[in-house]
């Protein structure tokens, strides 16, 4: 099983981004997805800059994948998309069927988590077009994944989002700009102020969601560390860690230690507690509401 780092979902300044990926280059991760997937107004790193990051990571021995933007609206979005899908050096993760159209039957690609691949027929179809890896939709359960794995197309690798605040929804509207009573077209790049997103709480103080520009995430941190045995037994090829503003390398390290069976998941989970920006959840994996947290009986007993 390989370890991947998902695309950076927040908007950080160039210095922070570069320092972050310098550290990632030295971290125990196998695959790194990079690029702007949330909002085309986030321009501190242009595609050329991302390609520099890609080279740096690739030189450090990482498999680099360029992720495409999820919500493609304008001709200028498409122009950027074409540059990404047309690049000859790095594999691409398609996060919209528009990207699939540009990649299909041309080069091998990764079918991203927002393509809505919910059944073997759709996965087979994408395999026929050149998909070599697919990322399960975040809301899919372990049982539903197991059923998919029964008829996995030949050579197809399965990746599961296993750690981080869940990217749950995308909108035309920017909720960070809205919070500041600004229009999206004049957002003054307020996302820069929220390196882990902006927490939305219920009126009784329960952290519920995270506003991240046009993206809405969970407030809780999805964490499948306790489900490692399931993931392994189910033939999952790659587990994805989503970047956060702090401690990402430590999280990767704990996942790596668990993966190599040098650390029991229960211990890794305990050590991870203080590294997470919010409480954990894993409900989706168990076919429950995503925000639920179901402790593993074995882990609970050993803890």
């Amino acid at each position: 099983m390989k370890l991947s780092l998902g695309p950076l979902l927040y908007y950080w300044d160039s210095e922070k981004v570069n320092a972050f990926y310098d550290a990632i280059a030295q971290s125990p991760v196998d695959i790194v997805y990079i690029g702007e997937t949330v909002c085309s107004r986030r321009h501190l790193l242009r595609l050329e800059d991302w390609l520099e990051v890609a080279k740096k990571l690739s030189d450090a021995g990482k498999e680099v994948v360029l992720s495409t933007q999820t919500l493609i609206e304008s001709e200028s979005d498409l122009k950027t998309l074409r540059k990404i899908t047309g690049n000859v050096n790095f594999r691409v993760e398609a996060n919209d069927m528009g990207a699939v159209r540009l990649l299909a039957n041309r080069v091998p690609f990764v079918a991203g988590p927002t393509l809505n691949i919910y059944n073997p027929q759709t996965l087979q179809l994408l395999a026929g077009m050149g998909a070599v890896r697919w990322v399960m939709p975040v809301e899919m359960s372990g049982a539903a994944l197991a059923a998919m794995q029964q008829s996995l197309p030949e050579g197809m690798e399965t990746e599961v989002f296993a750690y981080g605040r869940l990217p749950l929804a995308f909108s035309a509207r920017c909720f960070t700009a809205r919070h500041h009573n600004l229009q999206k077209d004049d957002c003054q790049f307020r996302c820069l102020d929220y390196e882990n997103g902006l927490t939305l709480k219920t009126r009784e103080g329960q952290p519920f969601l995270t506003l991240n520009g046009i993206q809405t995430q969970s407030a809780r941190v999805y964490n499948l560390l306790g489900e490692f045995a399931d993931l392994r037994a189910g033939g999952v090829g790659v587990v994805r860690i989503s970047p956060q503003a702090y401690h990402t390398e430590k999280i990767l390290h704990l996942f790596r230690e668990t993966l190599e069976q040098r650390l029991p998941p229960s211990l890794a989970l305990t050590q991870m507690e203080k590294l997470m920006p919010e409480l954990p959840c894993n409900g989706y994996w168990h076919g429950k509401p995503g925000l639920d947290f179901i402790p593993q009986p074995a882990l609970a007993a050993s803890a």
Partner: protein
Amino acid sequence: MQPETKKFELVCPAGSLPALKTAVDNGADCVYMGFRDDTNARNFTGLNFDLANAKEGVRYAHAKGRKTLLALNTYPQTSGWQRWTSAIDNAAELGMDAVILADPGLMQYAAKTHPGLRLHLSVQGSATNYEAINFYHEHFGIQRAVVPRVLALAQVEQLMSKTQVEIELFGFGGLCVMVEGRCALSSYATGDSPNTCGVCSPPKAVRWQETPQGLESRLNGILIDRYGKDENTGYPTLCKGRFDVAGETYYAIEEPTSLNTLELLPELMRMGVAAIKIEGRQRSPAYVAQVTKVWREAIDACRRNREQFAVKPAWMNELGKVSEGQQQTLGAYYRPWK
């Protein structure tokens, strides 16, 4: 490039046989409907059609020269696959004029098994650009796409210039502020999502409770809103609640409001939009009657004289009465809304 279309179809919701008949009687060109299960995105108790009702619905609409469209716009998972393919077979058998699909695997099945069956891309397919729309056209021959409620009007027009697929837009009704097909907020809170279960913020998860602080609405225990004495209450759709962000309590995602694009009619017709969709299969036949009647009148008036078209206050008044939260918006079509 699409020619200015003569047809500008009014597509109305039919959550039941009485609603279907009401829509047809009040001037709908097409009605859209779903079977009574999780194969469609309005999977609510007491709603939708069994085979006998569907047959009668198709007969009624066809007898009056109108079309019936079947929404099969959820994403089947492995264990339920056959329920969805049977639904497609039934749609073909019933003589539906088109099926509205979101799942690519299902589109492939429909295109192979029933080559004569017309396919529409559902809004749940999340196609917001022409590359995506053309993808579905090339591979499955979809003839119409329903576009998510996230694009500005200029973006819709740009998209239309690069595809031969007909474009259908939402004109009135409940407003999804998220890209349809890419929102898992409901399953995060309740376990059930539009994509896999055909529901958003499902009624079974809703609780109302009178408290000293006011009337509270909860979704699976999560406080969505709390109302003062004189405030109008609304269904606790989770993106339309009031929340606390950095110490400020407000509608952090969207106000309870309805989309209403009546004033855009001349522009939509000029652009060559093929059809306008009214949301609300979960609403009553009375809603369907009122909304269909107003939109029929408005479309006919606009068609007679596009330059002189003006929205009648009486129309807005009628539509205002059935709007969510009694408020209306142009949504993303009006760019500053974003």
